[in-house]
């Protein structure tokens, strides 16, 4: 077991984790933050996307020990004082989720895309979300939601 110190959603955690433990399972099973979902074993689907030091990372491609000292935001940490983050709100307004399983990862990928200034148009949004798969929505409403949150007309 290894000791790691993580800041997750602004809360400091000191944990003992197995060297082989993926970040997503540290979040889900040690911290009980089950909002981050696992959809594949191959870093393909993006359901497990979280923000690590502000950038979107597929938390199944990162070991818990690699996240030592880092600042992580999961879907549970996005709303403030009960108010949805603008991207969450846009997903609601534009019906950008159906079953909701890919949604936490998709929302965080979109937050990162917008904050990096790359959500400049619908095509750029589509390219920017390439790493996150949704099987329900056909992406149409996701693109509309992200465009709205990014202020793209």
């Amino acid at each position: 077991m290894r000791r790691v110190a993580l800041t997750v959603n602004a809360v400091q955690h000191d944990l003992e984790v197995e060297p082989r433990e993926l970040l997503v399972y540290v979040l889900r099973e040690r911290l009980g933050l089950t909002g981050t979902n696992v959809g594949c074993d191959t870093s393909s689907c993006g359901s497990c996307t979280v923000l690590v030091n502000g950038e979107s990372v597929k938390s199944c491609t990162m070991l818990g020990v690699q996240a030592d000292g880092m600042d992580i935001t999961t879907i549970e940490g996005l709303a403030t004082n009960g108010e949805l983050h603008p991207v969450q709100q846009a997903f609601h307004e534009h019906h950008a989720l159906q079953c909701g399983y890919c949604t936490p990862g998709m929302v965080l990928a979109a937050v990162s895309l917008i904050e990096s200034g790359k959500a400049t148009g619908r095509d750029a949004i589509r390219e920017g979300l390439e790493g996150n798969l949704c099987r329900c929505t056909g992406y149409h409403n996701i693109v509309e939601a992200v465009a709205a949150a990014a202020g793209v007309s």
Partner: protein
Amino acid sequence: MAVTEKTGTFVGTSVKRKEDASLLRGQGSFIDNLTLPGTAYMAVVRSPYPNARIKSVNLDAARAAEGVVAAFSGADLAGDWAGGMPCAWAVTEDIKMPPHYPLASEVARYQGDPVAVVVAESRALAKDAAELVDVDFEPLPSIADAVKALEEGAPLVHEDFGTNECYVWKLEAGDLQAAIDAADVVVTRRYFQPRLIPNAIEPRGVLAQVGPTGEITLWSATQTPHIQRFVLQLVLGVPESKIRVIAPDVGGGFGSKIQVYGEGPLAIVLARRLGRPVKWTEERAENYVGTIHGRDVVHELTFAATRDGDITAVKSEAWCAMGAYLELVAPGIPLLGAWLYSGPYEIPNYGVTFTGVFTHTTPTDAYRGAGRPEATYVLERTMDALARELDLDPVELRRKNFVREFPHTMASGLTIDAGDYHGTLDRLLEILDLDSIRADQEARRGRGDAKQIGVGFSTYNEMCGLAPSRILGAIRYAVGGWDSATIRFQPLGSVQVVVGTSPHGQSHETTFAQIVADRLGVGVDDVEVIHGDTAASQLGMDTYGSRSLSVGGIALWHASEKVIAKARQIVAHQLEVSEDDLEFESGTFTVKGSPDRNMTIQAAAFAAHVAHNLPDGMEPGLEETAVYDPPNFSWPAGAHAAVVEVDTETGDARLVRYVAVDDVGSPINPQIIDGQVHGGVTQGVAAALFEEGAYDDEGNLLTTTMTTYLVPSAAELPSFETDRIETHADNPLGVKGVGETGTIAAAPAVINAIVDALSHLGVTDVPMPATPERVWRAIEEVRR
């Protein structure tokens, strides 16, 4: 009172989803988020061979591994089963139905067939130990191709049957052969629709708990809690009254979570043996071999027509892969399309033959559209082939053959209640601006551009709203097609609705609340929809086949009628007037002509609960249940068009526009309908361009991850253009269903568009999925 003011009408408006509040915050109750105290974790050992004798299973090393609680082979658990996992659809009297148990104990018949289980203290330890299970397999010859599997000498999936032919099912109407013999033109085309892997982003999973007196609770990522409960009693030999199945939030299904898979009963018997809860979560790699696939059908479709384009007969023969065992409704999947080989067209002579075939592959079953995309694909592809043969415009050929008057009884015997096929196509053409696409096409051809453009059409209808129980009985389906709803006013006026269907993305909680809120005149937030738990809803037939709204929604409508009728009796009694003197509108009963004499339905509910002053003999409480058995299927229809740009040098085909005009009946929530169309279209487009569950000849799956099986991302797709026309289905809400329309329509539209883009080169067919290599080869073939 605890209720909110009702504001306006909800049905027909895009009420924002009630479901989103938890899902957007990461508070979904998905199966893998649920754990009970003392939970142990199950891992499944699967056959790496498509066909192999299991000579021995050595569990010693696994049992000795760290954290292992228990390990079992198929033989170890053979005594735990009261019966095999049944198939519910014996489509013919002489269908061959192989036994199918949760673990194979003698022969493993597909890559992924479960052969042993390990239970350990954690997911990781269970997986480690599963790798230590030593199975001595003797590989046997195997076959993956359904047509080849019927050839003499092909390896047999089930030796006892002496053949891989599972069944032959026929439907014929009119004088088929005479019509073909007499026709000016006969066109026959053969098409293969590859395997599709449903890929719900949430894999499957179960959590089983067995109580001290043997009562079973199974949490399962399933579309079908009631069907699970029914089947589990047969597999486990435990009465249904002792089984509770809960479907929590379910992360997509698309048909793949209908079936009763072995892992559910396995987790239950392990929980019973070990005295602690047992949980299993599927991994994606397991999902690709252990969850059903769809399609895998070879068709030969024949049209007979007059020289001026009147289609006089359609004849379809299809060879449908069942895989290694018969899943819950697998043999019947082709039948769901059996009445659709004439589609929206009036074709007087009709013949359909399906041959079900066993292969050494993952079992097939319902994947979005189930039977209807299969029929629609070959119908709409062959329409274009006939148009080319007759040198007619494909749009005009369709128009010429459309059904014009409704209700319309088809040659095949079923009656389409309502539709406007011309109107739907007209609206599509308005949006599409076909003239400018043709002008662009002409210009590119004239310049000899590398990138050519094409437009493809698909005018479809479908039968859904599964289904009239009498018809299901007539086609040998084991159970009925009704559904139920209960509406319960709570004392202070909020409303609980309990339904027998349960969602996995379809927005039941919002749509059903809209219906009830309008019927009862309450606020949409005052209606709580409870679903997915057999303890809450005893009567239900679950969610598939676009049935939740067109069957379950109508049950809800009837339940609301009953609630209003009882409330009316209470109000009449309390206001001392006749029931006939009361009007009910927006939640209030008013005495006709005396607007000041009134009583709200909430007040009636309170009166019903306190029961101080009810009519003689009336039972307290305001709660009613209705069970609705639809007299007919529902018949959504539409006209779709795809515009593709094809790079004739690389074979890359890119979808640039997609226009969908659908008639799904009266809309309840337009935004949710559009979302269903977008998602459905995407799955059809994906089948046309990207996705194929490919096996080698022996039955080794070649597409085993999301990096080789290409589920499209946002980057591969355009935004969609959608619109609706409305004809009202013959039910009180006028609704038809929308979950499958896009998937049914899209694949032929896209392939027709690619062929259209390349038609000036002489290309007449491109197989699905139209990968760059296949498109390039199709071009090279005609160039040679």
